[in-house]
């Protein structure tokens, strides 16, 4: 009996439908995010916060520490309510947040070309790369005395501290974003006909976007921290009244509930901007690329 040779082209099932079947079987499932994920993202941090406040309340009731070291949660709440009632809180927030935003935007404008130079010019990287990385680990509060001596108690001093805090982390984020581009992508760009400029615009910059965004996020955190350090130390009537000064006053008045209210407000602004601005941006970029580690 002659052996039958299977020829896929002559079999009853045609290639097109085999291929369509394979596509359906092999394509990764595109399930939408479930309610459980939403629950985990929103409800679980709220529960954690409630538990923290409960523990705080219990510790306060146990009266282990005197009132001037650990005030009751309610007293701190009243403190915030008070400045909200008088409307002062908006002034504090406006002074601090607008400074942080301006400082951050200037940092982005300085750090982006700097990061591109560091990533693309080996000589520049060899020369100032270690310096930029070193600056990132230097607490920016260390710059406050120098900034005050250079610029006096002015906005200039405060912006100097913010820039020195934020620029290195944004630049480093961009550098690592560019370093992590798979080498195959620029090669593909070349065979697809991209010159140097087109390659930067259509391949390198979009490919480096996730790293750049995480640099921006870190840069914002550094701007905010540096700003608070600067406001806390460099206080003067001509500098306006921000959250840092509020905290400084609280310390001078030895009013612990006011201190904690100040810390809480600083924390809320930092977390709020991260959650409302950077997290959605980052997760949109990552999700579009199938890197949905972030929420």
């Amino acid at each position, binding site marked *: 009996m002659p052996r039958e040779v299977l020829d896929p082209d002559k079999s009853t099932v045609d290639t*097109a439908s085999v291929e369509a079947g394979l*596509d359906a079987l092999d394509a*990764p499932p595109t399930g939408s995010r479930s309610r459980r994920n939403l629950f985990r993202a929103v409800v679980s941090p709220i529960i954690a916060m409630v538990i923290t406040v409960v523990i705080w309340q219990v510790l306060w009731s146990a009266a282990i520490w005197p009132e001037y070291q650990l005030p009751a949660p309610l007293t701190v709440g009243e403190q915030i309510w008070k400045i909200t009632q008088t409307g002062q809180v908006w002034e504090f927030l406006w002074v601090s947040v607008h400074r942080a935003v301006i400082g951050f935007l200037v940092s982005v404008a300085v750090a982006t070309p700097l990061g591109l130079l560091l990533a693309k010019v080996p000589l520049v990287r060899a020369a100032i790369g270690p310096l930029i990385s070193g600056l990132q680990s230097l607490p920016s509060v260390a710059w406050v005395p120098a900034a005050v001596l250079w610029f006096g108690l002015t906005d200039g001093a405060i912006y100097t501290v913010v820039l020195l805090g934020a620029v290195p982390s944004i630049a480093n984020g961009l550098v690592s974003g560019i370093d992590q581009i798979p080498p195959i992508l620029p*090669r593909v760009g070349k*065979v*697809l*006909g991209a010159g140097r400029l087109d390659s930067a615009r*259509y391949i390198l910059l*979009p490919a480096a976007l996730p790293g750049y965004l995480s640099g921006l996020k870190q840069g914002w955190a550094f701007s905010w921290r540096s700003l608070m350090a600067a406001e806390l130390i460099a206080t003067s009537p001509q500098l306006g009244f921000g959250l840092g000064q509020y905290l400084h006053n609280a310390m001078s008045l030895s009013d612990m509930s006011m201190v904690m209210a100040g810390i809480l407000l600083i924390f809320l602004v930092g977390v709020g901007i991260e959650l409302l601005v950077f997290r959605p941006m980052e997760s949109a970029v990552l999700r579009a690329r199938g890197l949905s580690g972030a929420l």
Partner: protein
Amino acid sequence: MTMTATLEATETAVRLTGVRKTFGHGNRAVTALDGIDLRVAPGEFVCLLGASGCGKTTVLNLIAGLDEPSSGKIELTTSRPAVMFQEAALMPWLTAARNVELPLRLAGVRKADRETRTQELLDLVRLGGVGDKRPHELSGGMRQRVALARALASALDGNRGEAASLLLMDEPFSALDAITRDVLQGELLRVWQTTRTAVVFVTHDVREAVRLGQRVVLLSSKPGRVVQEWSVTGLTGADELDAVAEINARLREVISSHAA
């Protein structure tokens, strides 16, 4: 100075004459290719076969213009061959359609034309319906087909808007599972017959080379030289198996000559 020239004659898609490639300098220099002569006719399907280190990828990179030969001459009829790598290497931030459109955008093709061309090419690889999916939503085989469509799109520009005249493929199916590879080999033959492009296909798989190619060119390793060529056009059944056995035997011979 580039050694790559554009061929005027139409009887050749690509011609390599005495191509040598040396990496490194002085006594640490490694000769990857030692005098490769190869001519591929328009519309011809040639498989370059060889073990690791035979420089088959180097040959492809030289033809693609990603690297320059140390000496010798490479002549092409097209100014931009279509190139496909082992990985699909799609841009992860672009949809499948945008990936295919990218080379057209780089070439400055008008938007309306870009969209028509993209849809045609996606239909050609039977992915007309998934243009708006992102690479991570596609299977490995689908990604490789998008990469094929994109490579063909990149060749349009160098060919005055005509279909690709030269397609260079570097082990494009070796990372896929067996069933997908089998289907994609069939698909590639269909696309080849539709577009009548010349193909230079690099592989280390003898069966694949015999199934796909009209001609199989065996390269030796370190340095790469052309050892032998077989015409395998239209072989079926027992003849095909015989050809696979013969080429396999020769390949094993070449590899065992490297045993220390």
